[in-house]
């Protein structure tokens, strides 16, 4: 019986892999799981030599900030 948490084909996109493997039911759930599992990588990136622009554009950081507390311009009312 195949393991539901391991996709048989990897897509190269960790969020898609979590969905395809059945580890998450929705994109939001997959993104949350991915971020929670990679906080150490976030901290490592904070200490890296990336420029501010590169740091902000890194997929993990972009996802973290997009799913975190909303910035002023995204807020309602």
């Amino acid at each position, binding site marked *: 019986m195949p393991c539901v948490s391991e996709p048989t084909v990897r897509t190269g996109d960790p969020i898609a892999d979590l969905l395809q493997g059945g580890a998450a039911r929705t994109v939001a759930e997959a993104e949350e799981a991915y971020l929670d599992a990679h906080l150490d990588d976030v901290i490592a990136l904070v200490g890296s030599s990336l420029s501010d622009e590169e740091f902000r554009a890194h997929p993990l950081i972009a996802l*973290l900030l997009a799913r*975190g507390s909303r910035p002023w311009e995204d807020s309602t009312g």
Partner: protein
Amino acid sequence: MGRLDGLSPESRLVQIVAAFRATRVECLVLGGHAVRFYGVSRNTIDYDLVVSLSAEDWARLGDIVGSLPFGRAPVEGPSWRPADFRRFTIGQLPDGRDERLEFWRKNHLLAPFADLSDRRCEGSYGGGTLAFLGLSDLLRSKETERESDWLDITLLEEIHDEHALRAGRIDDLRSRRGFERAAEAGLLTQPAALQAWSRAEHPVSLAYLQPYVGAASATPTTTGALAELLSGPLRAVDPGSARHLALVEAVRRLHKRQAMEADRADKRAASRRT
């Protein structure tokens, strides 16, 4: 007092609270109706109250609820911690779901009733005046194992920060929106941040303030990974930078994870006691 059926849920809540106060039971509204009171638009089918009752009076809560003029006799439901929490089905919604009245006497997320009462917020709701948990206490009460409570927290934090900033307070900032408004208003100077730091308690608030105070701040009272972030990387990043905001979100996630685990542990302990 008339019957409590045929009213909107908000008006029904007003009548329920009035009926309780008439029996000299002090209570504060929490849960979904409190979330709605503070401005978050969301549905709720439960009435949640925290009550000030001795163990003896808590034991006769069923009699008190039974004396209220609901459309049908309330039915007490199961509770995994009957010494602290009791729930009653008091009616049925048009879609067939049960309408529930739930009572907390205490739990690990609620301060003693006298403190909650001191910090309560009274306001218009459902055509009457009700006393709700203060916003900080409501936020704390939502730090449970349930994801849906954390969605409420996300929205309530923005409202909480609006209130705090109107009062010129930066010691309890919780949202990025509040943080950015505080920065834009020039409230985050180092002297102000230092003062705020000495009063701040919540890890997210400490994380927003930390880069402004740097090494001048005392060692945080938090422990483990949170303390390491606060006394390490957060002292070194530029205030308001993407690195700062990323670390705040890391702190938020770590705090949520710890709070969810603490709530699960509390529920397990309560279940073992019953």
